């Protein structure tokens, strides 16, 4: 296996633990924004789509790469807007509601 694959594996293992630690204390109130926020974060796939299409050489590669970019862009913008809208409501309900 090439050296950069080993590096990526090290990174992946450390990231898995980071992800677990960062998330493990999220209250159930925020489960939707957590899910939708992580949905937005895997929108980084758009970057991969740009690289794939950017280095595509045949027409078939271009078509498939183009699909990757379109879907990746939908993932990232849609994921962001949905998360932002949900969190905006939590903001408002904090200000609007009377404290018990």
């Amino acid at each position, binding site marked *: 296996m090439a050296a950069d694959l080993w590096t990526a594996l090290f990174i992946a293992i450390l990231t898995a633990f980071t992800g677990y630690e960062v998330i493990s204390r999220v209250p159930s109130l925020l489960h939707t924004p957590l899910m939708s926020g992580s949905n937005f974060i895997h929108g980084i796939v758009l970057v991969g789509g740009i690289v794939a299409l950017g280095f595509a050489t045949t027409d078939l590669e271009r078509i498939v790469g183009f699909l990757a970019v379109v879907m990746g862009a*939908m993932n990232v913008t849609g994921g962001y807007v949905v998360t932002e809208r949900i*969190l905006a409501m939590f903001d408002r309900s904090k200000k609007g509601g009377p404290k018990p």
Partner: protein
Amino acid sequence: MTSPLHDVVDAVYVVAILVFILGLRAMSSPTTARQGIVTAGIAMLIAVVVTFLSPGLSNFAWIALGVAIGGLAGFGWARVVKMTAMPQMVAVFNGMGGGAAAAIAGVELLGSLRGATADLSVAGAVIGSISISGSVIAFLKLQGWMPSKAIVLPARQVVNFAVLVVAVGFGVGAVGWLRPEYLAPFFGLLVLYGVLLTLPIGGADMPVVISLFNALTGIAVGLDGFALVSGPLGDAGYAMVIAGVLVGAAGSLLTVLMARAMNRSVGNVFFGAFGATEDAGAAVTGSLKPIDATDAATLMAYANEVVIAPGYGMAVAQAQQKVKELSDLLAAKGVTVKFAIHPVAGRMPGHMNVLLAEAGISYDKLFDRDEINAELPSVDVVLVIGANDVVNPAARRKGSPLEGMPILDVDRAKTVIVIKRGQGKGFAGIENELFYGDNCRMLYGDAQAAVGQLVTALKQS
């Protein structure tokens, strides 16, 4: 990593990853969450822009067009959709991510079947394809364009497994024998597998399903990242590995939490046909005792404390605004109002919280199961709105299909009023013993209409 421009691109990726982790971390508190997502959004925008500007790329017009089409579609759709449609929106945007991951793997495989990372691309393609087709089925079910009940085909375990094995066989064959013509059946069968996997899953299991497909897309993106690290612009690959694995870990944790809230394993949700077993031995004694809205309103108006337990029925009827009105009226009469939220009530993790927040109900009135169960025995009135299995005391009995599922102990309150459309059973297909209890009264009707009647009655009293 030769030109200074490469260093700039890499530095931006490093900062973006740092901000993603901090952004996810900010999700642990409602006061910081919004700032977290905004910061993560800016980091993402910069990462995308520098990737576009990085050296060696071609096909710029195609890239720009693709980003414009996808970006506008995603932005527009997510802006206009109603809050009640959030579960299916999350499903569809997640599916797009899975599809993008599968397509990237496709480009990699078309370009270099001989490459050292071709097997990683195959793995990314497998998971990404299952994620997009499964998410689309979940979307169709949640949107109501397809029956949300479990569709169980004969011998499905065998058929599904065979489809998956043949699909992976085509993928391995494409790489092993350098046969690009195998790629079409490979992707086609994987998409079919995602459909077959999701069809038998009913609506009430959707919180587990959506959350699992989210984790799967993360893993697919991470695998694509692995495949890209040794290519040109390898550092985009590292960024994808980190973001993908981060989501994979967070999503898996959430999936397990959701499954545990139903006392089932993730495998059971996907491979066990739930609702198919009938609980023959459970004879329910007692009768259903109806109540009209005026009496119910009077009971609540003279209570010290009212706990409202919402379920999917509230979401379907879009009754959350009426519920807010009801809670305000009761509060004005000096009644303490609290909300009891079961983790899997609704169709996605945290669904009830989002709907109540939309209606403007302060989140410090929302209590999760463990918090509220301790005080339920001393509560005067519990109002159950369109929830069924999550309040079914049969879960405490051995041999029930719901056995062991942690529930809201609303049957222990002094009085329970249940708003329900009819006398049908819950998703699990078993009678709810709560409804037959001496302390329980049934208020029949659509959740919005019934709560509306309660509001009218309260205003008149």
